[in-house]
């Protein structure tokens, strides 16, 4: 078993609160600063929201799986789905320069928040179906 905790829920946005509680309680046990715990919860919430919005296109009946594993050097979080593979350009890190009010775009922020919070973010879209994103957080800050 390459995980300590595995949770599978349907891709219903109602379950996001439960996922946040699980992530908060698990991460909080590793003595990380309170603010970082908040940011990790946010970033995993964003990963799950993206699965619901993009991979399942808003459908609430797809499997959404979360795997958590504490390794000696880092905490590892995996979010997996069986939905539509997301194209590579959706995953790219962009610079988050403070925009002018005119340039503001609602949306597209979730992936950037994931990159901001984690030390490593690896996206593995399937060839025909599914996505997996692995996020790693160094334990020594």
């Amino acid at each position: 078993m390459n995980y300590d905790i595995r949770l599978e829920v349907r891709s219903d946005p109602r379950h996001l609160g439960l996922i946040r509680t699980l992530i908060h309680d698990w991460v909080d046990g590793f003595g990380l600063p309170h603010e970082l715990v908040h940011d990790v919860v946010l970033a995993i919430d964003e990963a799950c929201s993206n699965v619901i919005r993009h991979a399942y296109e808003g459908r609430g009946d797809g499997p959404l799986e979360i795997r958590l594993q504490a390794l000696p050097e880092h905490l590892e979080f995996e979010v997996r789905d069986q939905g539509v593979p997301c194209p590579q350009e959706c995953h790219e890190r962009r610079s988050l320069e403070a925009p002018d009010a005119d340039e503001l775009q609602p949306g597209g922020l979730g992936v950037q928040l994931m990159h901001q919070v984690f030390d490593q973010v690896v996206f593995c879209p399937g060839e025909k179906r599914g996505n997996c994103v692995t996020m790693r957080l160094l334990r020594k800050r």
Partner: protein
Amino acid sequence: MALKIDRNRSDLVEVITVEGEVDLYTSPDLRSAVLKAVRKAKERVEVNLAGVAYMDSSGVATLVEGFKKANESSKTFTLVAPSDSVMKVLQLAKLDGVFEIDRAP
């Protein structure tokens, strides 16, 4: 946690007070309240976020949309007393300098 949204209005100002958690599940409710307030306001929209325990990027996107719509119709759009959680996500998104923010109501 559910989301509670109250709306108060005076002659020129629409005030929305938001309490609870804003995420992909609840942000559609916030979006309709914000867009309605922007439509109805004569001069100003104030969104009080003191009671927001959590906000994700869909909440931020909602605020961005309200802010842009208000600007288009020459109305001001102010975030009032945003909670730590709201400030944190705005800072991560580098948007804390874009909004008009009234820290102490």
